[in-house]
């Protein structure tokens, strides 16, 4: 496992190979792994962590393959996003995804149209997911608190909203 990002970035000699390999840099024009590392080396880690741009990494790992100094830029970005999440800064779509997993153990909820489609194709019933275990793990790691849903499932959230109206 690569080291902590503080250690990893110290190896960077700013060659720009990561950015050259990066599909997100090419398309977005705002995301640039080499530059983000440069800012951190110059002491602006806090600014980088709070910048929404870090969420534009697609995790393709092209940079990891090519970086000549084993900086593992994708890993650096994962760690930075983890810090941002701990600081309460994360994309709404990902909170939604985590809440869905907390609710059903899967990123998509099983529904009767899905069951019908499975049947039509002759597929066996979707095996039961042990949601209790998944919820317990997510409470133990504290992700529910970090994302500020504190053990609330999507269903409970919906019920609450309906009650309010």
């Amino acid at each position, binding site marked *: *496992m690569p080291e902590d990002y503080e250690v990893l970035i110290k190896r960077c000699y700013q060659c720009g190979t990561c950015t050259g390999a990066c*599909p*997100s840099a090419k*398309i*977005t024009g705002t995301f640039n792994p080499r530059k983000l590392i440069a800012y951190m080396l110059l002491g602006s880690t806090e600014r980088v962590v709070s910048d929404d741009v870090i*969420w*534009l*990494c*697609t*995790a*393709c*790992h*092209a940079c*990891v*393959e090519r970086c000549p100094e084993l900086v593992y830029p*994708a890993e650096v970005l*994962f*760690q930075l*996003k*983890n810090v941002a*999440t701990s600081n309460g800064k*994360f*994309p709404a*779509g*990902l909170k*939604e*995804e*985590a809440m869905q*997993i907390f609710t059903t*153990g*899967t*990123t*998509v*909820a*099983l529904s009767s149209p*899905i069951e019908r*489609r*499975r049947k039509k*194709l*002759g*597929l*066996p019933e*979707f*095996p*039961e*997911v*042990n*949601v*209790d*275990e*998944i919820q*317990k*793990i*997510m409470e*133990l*790691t504290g*992700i529910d608190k*970090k*994302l500020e849903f504190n053990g609330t499932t999507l269903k409970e959230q919906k019920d609450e909203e309906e009650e309010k109206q």
Partner: protein
Amino acid sequence: MTSYSFFLGCMIPLRLQNFEASVRRVLPTFDIELLPLNGAGCCPDPIGIQSLDQTTWFSLGARNIAIAEEMGHDMLTLCNGCFETLKTTNHELLHEPTLKDKVNGILSQINREFKGNIKVRHIVEILFEDIGAEKIREVVTHPLSNLKVAVHYGCHLVRPSEILAFDDPERPQSLDVLIEALGATSIPYLKKMECCGTGIRSIDMDSALKMTRQKLIEMKRVGADCITTVCPFCFIQFDVGQFQIQKQFDEEYNIPVLYYMELLGLAMGLQPKELGLDMHRIKTKKLLARLFPQ
């Protein structure tokens, strides 16, 4: 007969049942038995959940592996995302005692334990390494002649190579060989190893679609009849995403996207309907009519 703990994940059984149908119909031909993994859940998502919290990502992944360990068989995944998560988790926990202790501390609360005694495999690995192109050629009864396929590996089949250790991370060949075993032609195109963009679909849809579009432009330029993927996320990006791009940019591509197992099923003479080929957003009808004229 080889038996595997069959890790379905969530996108395939709940959204892309066509993937599952093709796998369940094709694999028995190769003497492979699929055992259900009772209680398993999302792998979880190697991009979204790992970005939020790596400890949660490792722990949920390790729980799935622990269930497979109890069954005593290697795990079979059908998706690059599941492969990335489960193989990385397996690898890191095996090599990092402190991480393993931390995760096992969490798993002990649900009476489970990660031991590290099974392997995580991707279906492409099994086809390419264990079964081999030669055997696949033997089961082809309806060769896909004159079919030009744009192969999209998807990042997480081969990267990070240090961990996934399958094929070459920049110039892989396995899937091209497997395509040619069906009698089809894998055509070279620029940006073949570029990311499809799906990783930021929920964060910046515009940029995600622009990444896909770059690839579609190159695929169209070389006259691809279809695209093949081995990952449900890449599939959605090329299938649903292509539909969105055609609207948004007022461009026409209409290149059908097929999971490799769907193509293999067709080449084995299975019916398009039983493979779920009518479930695609970009219609496969014309392609099928050309492949198999009545």
